Structures are given as structure tokens and as C-alpha cells.
């Protein structure tokens, strides 16, 4: 379990994972032919996924390994690209007359120029990249789930432009950005130099901006600027952290900073966590992620599962040891807690499937943020499990909704009534994805359970236990009623599943398998990756007791075996029509209503708008979390002054 230093970064898997998606992106920018593009995406995705797994095999047991990389020319190159990005955003800002974006970019560029030429000189760190177990977990999520989403996107985007002939086909740019996004995410999880981490951070902001605005409609442009501005605001805080570190001599190396702790580390931890809160779409910044669903579905899947929002919680989990037990840490945790509670409640009132998924993402990220803010080893264990399981289930759900949308022509949950007869395989996969989100014995529930235990043992944790108890009840409601829509068996209809492409089937089946597999393998993930990592940082670890793992495996086994009973139930049963209060109905559920009008029975879910409406609850969540963030900044400012 010793930490090592490894020369030869340029030949290492880590460097390959950062560079290769970028090369693939450039190749994809140049390719025009459809089938060549699918081949390139397929091969690149396979390679990225394979190398991520190879990284696991190579580094799983080697603790933290640092890569000394000379800051020249890489650091200078990053600075230049960063300035190029700023110029590009300024151009976009002027083109679409978005002056907030222009102002934020100008301030940030000024800060970075000051940082680069005014104060950072001579303080260039050596160990600029590193890999540890947490990086490996993130790399697996990005490398496997991110690549699968890209593969799915090939087939989806073809359909997408077929369905929307009015939109300009910019698929070359689309796949370019998707792969740049992956490259930036790999860079982000391997960077030990905070300045470099910030570079990758800004690339993800830019990528999401461009992907959300892909279709170029007015709404898409509006939402993409909303996302850009909120994330640029977070970027400002991040840049502020860099300047603080340069001024106080705290050093740019993530590992040393966290080991140092104290106020030197707390100020940047809070500023970067603020950036994380914007990126992870917590209240008051949740609206950008909800608006982002305007983008084609693979983009949503990517933003929600393996990139963007996960970058936000990744840095917060990194800084968790510094936040532990501090007032700003508790404020961050409260922002996460209230976001979890309110976003879960809002999800109840939504009938748009992508919006439900978006609010569920915001809610679950809230839970991760709460764990990070509390920062005990138990809370971080729960946070990492949440990151893993959420990525798997949520990507599957988004892609399923995308497939349904193209075949059924709607993303409304009410239109998914009886999907089990129209698109049986997709419906079953969706059910697996949803079970993965809230039911025992699947991953997300294990994680919530871990979170409850972590909260009880933490000081003031009782508050979070109460939030979690109410929040998880809300979660059960909105997932279960959606499940109910899918499985209700309406009068016979035609199967609409045959038109789904083989690529989509492949990706969906793989992800559905992964939901189950992650649950089976989680004790191994915990003991080989998460626990050694926690032990290295905290000197303590936690895990589930073995008999509980055994019971959960029994439950999983039962869930896989019980459907066999369907074969038995098909025989010897007489089928009748549903009871209609004595009213006679036709086989298609039509009945003769008042004054002899022929009516069809339609059933709809409860959305309880009066209680859980989006605007109503946002009006509570936004000011509440702004106050909490203000207390957080005040707390850190007081601590800084005392220092």
C-alpha cells in the first residue's frame, strides 16, 4: 500500500486516457461518412473502455501513484487553450448578446492572467498527475459508461436528424465535443495540479454549453447560456481558490493541500466546493440541469451519469477531509440535504420523463454533496457508492427514455402507459434501471442505507437522517407510480420495438446488466478500491456486515428467479375484463357514458401539483440555499480573518 512515483507519464495508461479521446474527437470532426463515423466511435469507445479496465488491473493495488510531469510545455499549452476558450465564449456572448457570460468570462480571464503572470511564478509543482483508487473508480465510470453512451449516440443521432429534418445536421461537431468531454473528464480525475484540474474543469463547462445548445433553437441557446453562466460563476470561485493558494503559498498540489488541512486548505476547499455545487446543479443552481434536457438524450445521459455533474461531486469528495467538522462543511451538507429533499418532492409533480430523471439526479447529487460536506469516512464511503450506482442506473434510464421517445413519439410518462406490451424489452430494462434507483437490494438503496448510518454517527447528523427519511419516502412515490404506468396491461396493441437498432439494444442490454452486476460486485468494489482509499486518508474504514451482504444477494437471487413463475401463471386462467362498477365495456375498454356517448377508460397518475409543484418548491429551495451559501462564505471569511 505504498505510494509511488512513476516516471514515464507519456507512455502511461493515464496519459493515453486523456489524450486518446481527444485524438478520436479530432478524427471524428473530419469524418463525413455515416458508417465510417460509427466504426470510429465504436472502436474508440471499445479502446477507451478496455484501457480503463486495464488501468484498474494495473493500479488497483498500488495505492497513490504520482507522475512527475514538467509544467513545460503542457502548462503553457493549457493556459493558451484556456485563453482561446475565453475568446470563443466572448465571441458567443457577443453573437447571442449575452452580456452576463461576457462579464463573467472577462473577470475570470483577468483573474487567470493575474494568477499566471502575477503570482504563480516559480511555484510550479512537480507531481502534476496522479492515479489512486478513487481516480480509478471515476475512470471506469467515464471509460465504460461514457463510451457506451457515445456508441448509443451514433444510432440515436441518426434517428434524431431523421425525426427533425428542420435542424441542421452538425453531427461531426457533436461527436467531436462528446469525445473532448470524455478527455477532459479523464484529465480532471487524474490531475493533481489544481491549476490543471481547473483547465479540465473549464473544458467540461464549455463542452456542456455547446452540447446543450446543439440544436440551435432559441430555447436551446437560452438554456445553454443558463448552464454556461452558472458554471462560469462556479469557475470564478475556483479561480479565486487558485489565487488564494498562490498568495498564501499553499501550493497547487491537491494531495499535499488535503494533507496540510487547516485554514490554508479550507478556503480553497470551500471555494472549489461552491464551484462543485454549481456544477452538480444544487439549489440555487438546479435550473441549468433541468434546462439541459433540451439537448438530445445521449447528451443528458452523459451529463447526468458519467461527466459534468459527477465532476462537481468528485472535487467535493476530494476535499471532504478538509470540510469535515467545519461550519462551512455543514452549510454545504445542508445545501445538499435540502436539495435532496426538495428535488425529490418536485420529481413527484413532473410527468415529463426527462424532467423526472433530471430532478432525481439533482436529488441524488444532493445526497452526495451532503455526505461530502459531512466528510467523515463513513459518509465518504456512502458518497462513492452513490456516485457509482447512480451513474449506472441513470445512464440506462436516460437511454431507455431516448429509445422510447423515438419509437412512441413522446417523453411523457402518461404516454408510456402499458409499455410492457408495446416495447417489452425496453420496459423491462427501464424497470431494472428504476429498481436500481430506489429498491432493495439494488445499489442506490444500499448507498442510502450507508448514508443513514454515516449520518447517525456524525455530529449533528440527526438533521440529515431526518431529511433522508422524508426524502426517500418521496423517492419511492415517484418511481413506483412511473413503474406502475409501464407495467399496466392495456388492451392489446402493436409491438413497436422492432425498429430499435441493434446498437441501441447492445448498449441498453449492457447497461441493464451493469446495474445488476454492480450490485453483485459492490462488496468487491468496496474492499479492493474504496476501503483501501479511505484507509489511506482517514486511517479508518467501514463496510457492510457480511450477513447483510448475504441477505441482499438472496433478495437479488429471488428477484431474478421469481419471474419464472410467469410461465406457470400463463396456464389454466380465465381472463376477464376489469371491473367497471357493473358497466359493460368492450375489449378495448370503451363504455357507454352519460347521454349515450361512447367513452374510453383513461387512467392517469397522481402528480400532486398543489403540494409538490416545481415553482412552489423552487421558491423555497432557492432562497434557502442562497442563505446557507452566504453563511458558508461568512464562516470561511471569519475563519480566514482570524487566521
Amino acid at each position, binding site marked *: 500500500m505504498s505510494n509511488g512515483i512513476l516516471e514515464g507519464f507519456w507512455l502511461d495508461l493515464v496519459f493515453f486516457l486523456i489524450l486518446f479521446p481527444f485524438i478520436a474527437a479530432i478524427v471524428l470532426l473530419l469524418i463525413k461518412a455515416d458508417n465510417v463515423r460509427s466504426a470510429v466511435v465504436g472502436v474508440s469507445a471499445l479502446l477507451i473502455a478496455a484501457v480503463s479496465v486495464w488501468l484498474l488491473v494495473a493500479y488497483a493495488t498500488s495505492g497513490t501513484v504520482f507522475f512527475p510531469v514538467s509544467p513545460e510545455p503542457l502548462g503553457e499549452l493549457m493556459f493558451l487553450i484556456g485563453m482561446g476558450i475565453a475568446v470563443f465564449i466572448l465571441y458567443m456572448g457577443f453573437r447571442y448578446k449575452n452580456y452576463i457570460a461576457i462579464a463573467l468570462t472577462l473577470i475570470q480571464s483577468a483573474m487567470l492572467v493575474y494568477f499566471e503572470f502575477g503570482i504563480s511564478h516559480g511555484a510550479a509543482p512537480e507531481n502534476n498527475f496522479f492515479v489512486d483508487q478513487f481516480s480509478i473508480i471515476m475512470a471506469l465510470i467515464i471509460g465504460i459508461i461514457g463510451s457506451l453512451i457515445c456508441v448509443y449516440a451514433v444510432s440515436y443521432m441518426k434517428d434524431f436528424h431523421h425525426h427533425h429534418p428542420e435542424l441542421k445536421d452538425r453531427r461531426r461537431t457533436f461527436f467531436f465535443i462528446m469525445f473532448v468531454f470524455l478527455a477532459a473528464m479523464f484529465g480532471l480525475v487524474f490531475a493533481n495540479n489544481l491549476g490543471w484540474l481547473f483547465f479540465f474543469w473549464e473544458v467540461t463547462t464549455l463542452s456542456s454549453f455547446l452540447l446543450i445548445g446543439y440544436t440551435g433553437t432559441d430555447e436551446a441557446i437560452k438554456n445553454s447560456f443558463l448552464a454556461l453562466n452558472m458554471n462560469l460563476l462556479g469557475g470564478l470561485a475556483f479561480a479565486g481558490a487558485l489565487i488564494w493558494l498562490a498568495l498564501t503559498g499553499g501550493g497547487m498540489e491537491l494531495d499535499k493541500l488535503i494533507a496540510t488541512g487547516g485554514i490554508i486548505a479550507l478556503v480553497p476547499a470551500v471555494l472549489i466546493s461552491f464551484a462543485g455545487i454549481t456544477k452538480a446543479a444544487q439549489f440555487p443552481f438546479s435550473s441549468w440541469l433541468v434546462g439541459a434536457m433540451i439537448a438530445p438524450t445521449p447528451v443528458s445521459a452523459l451529463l447526468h451519469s458519467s461527466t459534468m455533474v459527477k465532476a462537481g461531486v468528485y472535487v467535493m469528495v476530494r476535499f471532504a477531509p478538509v470540510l469535515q467538522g467545519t461550519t462551512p462543511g455543514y452549510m454545504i451538507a445542508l445545501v445538499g440535504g435540502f436539495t435532496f429533499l426538495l428535488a425529490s418532492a418536485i420529481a413527484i409533480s413532473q410527468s415529463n420523463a426527462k424532467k423526472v430523471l433530471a430532478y432525481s439526479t439533482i436529488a441524488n447529487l444532493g445526497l452526495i454533496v451532503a455526505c461530502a460536506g459531512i466528510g467523515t469516512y463513513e459518509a465518504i464511503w456512502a458518497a462513492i457508492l452513490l456516485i457509482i450506482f447512480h451513474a449506472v442506473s441513470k445512464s440506462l434510464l436516460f437511454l431507455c427514455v431516448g429509445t422510447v421517445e423515438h419509437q412512441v413519439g413522446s417523453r411523457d410518462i402518461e404516454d408510456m402507459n*402499458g409499455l*410492457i406490451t408495446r416495447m417489452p424489452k425496453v420496459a423491462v430494462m427501464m424497470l431494472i434501471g428504476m429498481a436500481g434507483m430506489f*429498491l*432493495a*437490494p439494488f445499489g442506490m438503496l444500499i448507498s442510502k*442505507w450507508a448514508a443513514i*448510518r454515516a449520518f*447517525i454517527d456524525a455530529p449533528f447528523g*440527526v438533521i440529515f*437522517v*431526518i431529511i*433522508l*427519511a*422524508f426524502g*426517500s*419516502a*418521496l423517492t*419511492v*412515490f415517484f418511481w*413506483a*407510480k412511473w*413503474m*406502475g*404506468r409501464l*407495467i*399496466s*396491461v*392495456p388492451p392489446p396493441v402493436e409491438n413497436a420495438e422492432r425498429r430499435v437498432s441493434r446498437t441501441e439494444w447492445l448498449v441498453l442490454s449492457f447497461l441493464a446488466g451493469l446495474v445488476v452486476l454492480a450490485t453483485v460486485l459492490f462488496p468487491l468494489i468496496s474492499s479492493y478500491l474504496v*476501503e483501501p482509499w479511505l*484507509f489511506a486518508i482517514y486511517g479508518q*474504514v467501514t*463496510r457492510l*456486515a457480511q*450477513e447483510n451482504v448475504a*441477505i*441482499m444477494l438472496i*433478495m437479488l437471487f*429471488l*428477484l431474478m428467479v*421469481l*419471474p419464472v*413463475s*410467469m410461465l406457470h401463471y*400463463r396456464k*389454466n*386462467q*380465465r*381472463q*376477464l*375484463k*376489469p*371491473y*367497471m*362498477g357493473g358497466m359493460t365495456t368492450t375489449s378495448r*375498454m370503451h363504455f357507454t357514458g352519460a347521454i349515450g356517448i361512447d367513452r374510453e*377508460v383513461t*387512467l392517469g*397518475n*397522481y402528480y400532486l401539483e398543489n*403540494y409538490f409543484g416545481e415553482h412552489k418548491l423552487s421558491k423555497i429551495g432557492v432562497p434557502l440555499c442562497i442563505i446557507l451559501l452566504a453563511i458558508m462564505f461568512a464562516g470561511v471569511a471569519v475563519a480566514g480573518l482570524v487566521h
Partner: protein
Amino acid sequence: MYNTPSDHVCRGRRCGVGALMSIIYALLFLLLAPVAGGLIAGIDRRITARMQGRVGPPILQPFYDVGKLFEKEKVVVTNSQNFYVLCYLVFIALSGAMFFGGGDLLLVIFAFTLAHVFLVLGAYASNSPYSHVGAERELIQLMACEPIIILAAVGMYMVTKSFYVADIAATKIPLIVFIPGLFAGFVYILTMKLRKSPFDLSTSHHAHQELVKGVTTEFSGSTLGSIEIAHWYEAIFLLGFVYLFFSWSPVIAVIAIIIIYVFEILIDNTFARVKWPLALKSSWLVTAVLGILNLAVLYIIGGFLK
């Protein structure tokens, strides 16, 4: 390298002979709970009848009823509905077995929720208006009950320092003294879980339901019988949960269970059914006020004891 507490510490009766005892207790639950649950249902019906000035059926009537249900013709609206009911029965029995086997209380609660989700799915599957509304209401009830059940388990943990039912049952601390608020909250939602008025919204034991039979409208024959058996399992599990609050003294615990159950029957016969918003709001309010106050007090006491 390192050890976690769970690797080498054995608490409760979870090791060696203890593990064997757990399995025996779990098996005893699986065998005896339907008998006990059926008997309680029979006594319930007798007491209810007396409260209404009737003689009432024989104590064994619930068994005759279920036996008759299994003789009936198999009739369904859709084939899949029986599958969901089977899952409901299996997971209710499993969560009860885990509980009486002394397992982790939170895991028991999660398995219990899973079971109920299956019942709701079974009601949705039939695409029938009455069972559809029943399913929606059942979900609302699930949402109303869940917080206090979790918080009750958390309160027990804060006092006994264990989530294992075996440890909580073996404690010498009078839990009820420390968590009366959580107990009151639990009794409040117990009415819902036992499907008693004023909270018998999704389905009812009484014949007068505006939703016909709510979630169970489209189930008949052996499937309806299975739901009834699952409900017996559930009743015993819930009364077991009540036992934990008084576990320091088994005699008092049994007396408490009897009083609570008779109290529930009395409420059932004296209150009219309420609408779902009131059921949801009132149970969340009770949970929020009693549960949070109780946990806050516990937390402060815990701080002083440290």
C-alpha cells in the same frame, strides 16, 4: 492490513450457535406467523362485532375464508398480476423472517417497502379504474408511513447503539422511556398499515369502500388468499416492531401489544374514513413534530452522556 468492527466483533446472537438460533427463529416465524396472524384477525372480527352490537363470526373464520378462496376458479384480468402478488407474499415473509431472525432493522424496513411496491405494481398491472386509484392511494400511504418507521429504527439505534433486532430485543434499557414520541408516531401509522379506519384508503377489511376493494379489486381466488396470508405475516411483523419498544420487559411488552391492538380496533370502529391529503399531511406532521423532537432530545442527552 486493517480490520473493521464487523470482522471480529460478534454481537447479539449472530455467531456460531447464535446464527443457528437466528435461522430457527426465522423458520418459526414463517411457520407460525400465518396461524397467529389468522387468529388475531379472527379475534379482531369478534371484538369489532361486539363493538357494533353483533355476535360476530367464529374465531377461526379467517382460515375458513382463505381456505375457500383457494378452492375458487382462477380468474385474472392480466396474467402478470399474480406474479406481483407472489413477490409481495415472498418479500413480506422474508422481511418478517429477517426481523424475527434478529437481522438488521434498516434492511428489514427496506425489504418491507419492496414488498409493498410489488403489491402496488400488481394493482397497476390490471389497468382497472378501481385498483388504479387504490394503487395511487397505497403509494401515498407508503410515502406517509416510511419516514416514521425509519426514524423509529434510528431512535432505537441511538439508545441501544445497534441496528440488529437481536440486540434491540435483548436490551435492558426501557426504550419506551427514551423514544415515546417515536412510539406515538409509529402507533399513528400502524392504523394505516393494519388497514384500519380512518386510514383504510387503498383497501379495507370492511365492506363499505367507495373504491370497491381498492388495490385488491381485481384479485380473486388463490391470489386474493395469498394477499390475505401476506397481511397476516405483516400484522405479526408490525406487532413485533411494537414489542421492541418494550423489549426490556417481555410481560409489559405483551400487555402493550394487546392494549395497542384493541386501541386500533376501537379507532377503526369510531372514526370515519378520511381523504388521502389529510392522511398524508397528518402523518407527516406527527412524524415531523414527535419524531424530530424526540430525536433532538435523544441527541442532546447523548451529548451529555459523552
